[in-house]
């Protein structure tokens, strides 16, 4: 009896192992996936990522676990991803500047071509915003004028990139600003809303406070005017020659097999047509959903990377704290 039980156990164990092995060969994904978000919990990237994860879960038939690895404008997460060897089970959802700007600005352990860009799914709508009831009303010219007359006007920064942009603007307009670090959108919002900081960068968090008018948008940081805030001038229109158009992309290490990338791309394309994803992106974060396939998004990222390199040379490297 005991012998028989043992044999059955051994046979069934072998069988299930065999099946598992087969599944792994044919069917990606055959185990839970991790979606790495390089920003803190509660910001706009994170909010969007969590809905995307739910949708992908259904498309891929496996749980998709969101993991926050905040730090250095998304670079911490990508540094870890670059060394990942699990063939697409771990992928990052993030903003393009982390790869187009990061490697030029800081010593990163990754470069633009360490990753494959499975697809772009959202066009960024970053902005420079302010709060209600400020001594300057909501227009960019007035802020500049105010800041010129009031040295020490404060600006809330989130990433090295927006820091560079504001330093570039400050240089061009001859402003003396106090640049305050914050921990992402969830850290910036209370400072702007409470009036502790005069104006600041927002990757998308401002959309949550747009309808109530709590966070007027001063300047759009995309190449075109912002979809939801067409009254605010774009960076170029305001007279600054910088291309900061962000794309939110899904990235995997460059050694990920084609079949896995294709499967992910397929699921992502379906996700960009899913109502829940469209709703959170277009109505809550207020960013247009656009599916940009791998080769096209890769080309755009390469162009932008080149642009940032030139800008940094012009500014003489990343601005110091001093």
């Amino acid at each position, binding site marked *: 009896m005991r012998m028989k039980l043992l044999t059955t156990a051994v046979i069934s164990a072998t069988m299930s192992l065999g099946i598992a092995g087969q599944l792994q060969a044919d069917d990606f994904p055959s185990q*839970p996936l*991790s979606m790495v978000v390089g920003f*803190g*919990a*509660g910001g706009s990237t*994170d*909010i969007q990522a*969590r809905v995307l994860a739910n949708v992908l879960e259904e498309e891929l038939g496996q*749980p998709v*676990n*969101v993991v*926050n*690895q*905040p*730090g*250095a*404008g998304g*670079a*911490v*997460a990508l*540094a*870890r991803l670059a*060394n990942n060897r699990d063939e697409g089970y771990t992928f990052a959802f993030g903003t393009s500047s982390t790869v187009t700007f990061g490697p030029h600005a*800081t010593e990163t*352990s990754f470069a633009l071509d360490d990753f494959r860009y499975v697809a772009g799914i959202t066009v960024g709508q970053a902005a420079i915003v302010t709060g209600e009831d400020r001594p300057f009303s909501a227009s960019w010219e007035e802020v500049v004028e105010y800041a010129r007359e009031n040295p*020490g006007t*404060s600006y809330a920064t989130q990433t*090295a990139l927006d820091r560079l942009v504001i330093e570039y603007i400050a240089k061009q307009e001859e402003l003396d600003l*106090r*640049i*305050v*670090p*914050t*921990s992402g959108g*969830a*850290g910036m*919002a*209370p*400072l702007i809303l*409470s*009036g*502790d*900081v005069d104006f600041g960068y927002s990757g998308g968090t401002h959309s*949550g406070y747009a309808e109530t008018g709590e966070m007027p948008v001063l300047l759009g940081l995309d190449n075109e005017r912002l979809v939801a805030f067409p009254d605010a001038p774009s960076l170029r229109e305001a007279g600054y020659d910088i291309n900061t158009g962000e794309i939110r992309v899904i990235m995997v290490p460059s050694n990920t097999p084609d079949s896995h990338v294709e499967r992910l791309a397929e699921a992502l394309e379906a996700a960009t047509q899913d109502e829940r994803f469209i709703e959170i992106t277009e109505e809550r974060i207020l960013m247009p959903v656009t599916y940009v396939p791998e080769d096209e998004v890769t080309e755009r990222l390469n162009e932008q990377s080149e642009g940032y390199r030139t800008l940094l040379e012009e500014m003489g490297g990343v601005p110091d*704290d001093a």
Partner: protein
Amino acid sequence: MIGFDAILNAFVAALGFNAIMVVLGGVVLGYLVGVIPGLNRSVAIAIAIPLTFYMSAYAAIAFLIGLSKGTAAGSAVSAILLNTPGEASSAATCLDGYPMARAGKPRKALKIGLLASVIGDLLATLLLIAVAIPFAAVALKFGPYELTAILLFALVFIAGMAGGSFLKGLAAGGMGIILGTVGLDPETGAMRLTFGFAELMEGVPILPLVIGTLALSEMFVQLDHYRRNRDEKPIGLGKDRKQDDLSWQEFKTILPTILRGTGIGAFVGALPGLGPSVGSFMSYGLAKRSAKDPESFGKGNPRGIAASESADNAVIPASYIPLFGLGIPGSVSAALLVGAFMIHGIQVGPLMLRDHPEMLFTLFSGMIVASILMLGVGWYGLRLFAKVTSVPSHIVIPVVIFLCLAGIQVQGYGTFGMLVVFGFALFGYFLKKFDYSFVTFLVAFIVTPMLEMNLRQSIILSGGEISILLQRPIALTFCIATVLMALHLSWSGYRKRAELRAA
């Protein structure tokens, strides 16, 4: 600001079948953990956090809250039947619970413990709801100056209150601060204290740290304890229910004690750092001192059990007041909840009121549901839980060690995670051995990034002019309070040592 509809929806959400099942699961599991001697709330939450990764945010948090409430009530069972508190905060329950059980009234003792637990818990939960919301509404207006001052105050306060010695408290807090600064500098992106480990770039990973210091180290301590006490036999429930049950008359006589214990527990809980043990002993002491028959305490007085258990359970919801109101975790279980919230993408603190009001209200409703379920589970599970007290340590300890390590492995921390977990288990063992405060260490670790960011913001915004604090009444008040507190604590510590030397 928040409509009645939203509150109603939150209640309805918390009363859904799935929502109730999750809370029930937490309460039952918590009860079991509480009943098993040597397993405590922190161990339970530390191990359960990885299990909640695949749940929705609400389910995860509701489960953890149900769990922590269940352990508080369950630990009374082993205190009464085994004279071994499931956790330190039930030690006062042993004093009267065990003699009463030995005198042939285990069922009565257990029911007193249960009712005191549930009433203490429920009333403190209602207090939390009443206080945390206005608190958070005010706290939303706080800027970096205020937050820096409040966080500093909380750290010094916790260092002073949690452990015996203020110096040891500061040392434990200092260790937490050092570990909390590991990783990338938030402003410049420079590496700090990573010693070349890429794994440390995002800071010391919280899960291995928590599981190591809290759960695994506790198993080492239990191993020590196990060798010394092998032959404790629990008291079984008797057959004779006539002799051994709680009557309505008796319940009425202990109700005032329960209410006072709840008040003491809620007060102690709302102050960060004090914790349930302080609450239950304070309440017990007060009940004994104010009784007409103080000599009957320690010999099976029902009011002794009621005082200790009501305070023990009231501490937990009350300790979430500073958590939801200000974002400051005041107890180990609150600190662990911060970690769980972060993992699920929610910034715990006053911002929840603005950004996730429906979540906050559903949670509160879930907490009330948990209180009520606790009563049902405890009442009908009495017999079962009495049996569980006899699960021997040589089964419990290896199972828990396995769960600890599996939790780290499942989360993909790999070899590095194992090193961290064992490192912190050793570290936690010595913290316990030499009586350094856990709460101070853990809260300092969690609060440090917040404190650092706010301090930097304050310095930059003020242009380095510290005098700006004089124009900020709230910040100024907390700065002065911090200094006074530190002076007071070091002075009283100095006097205590002087007295010891004189004696």
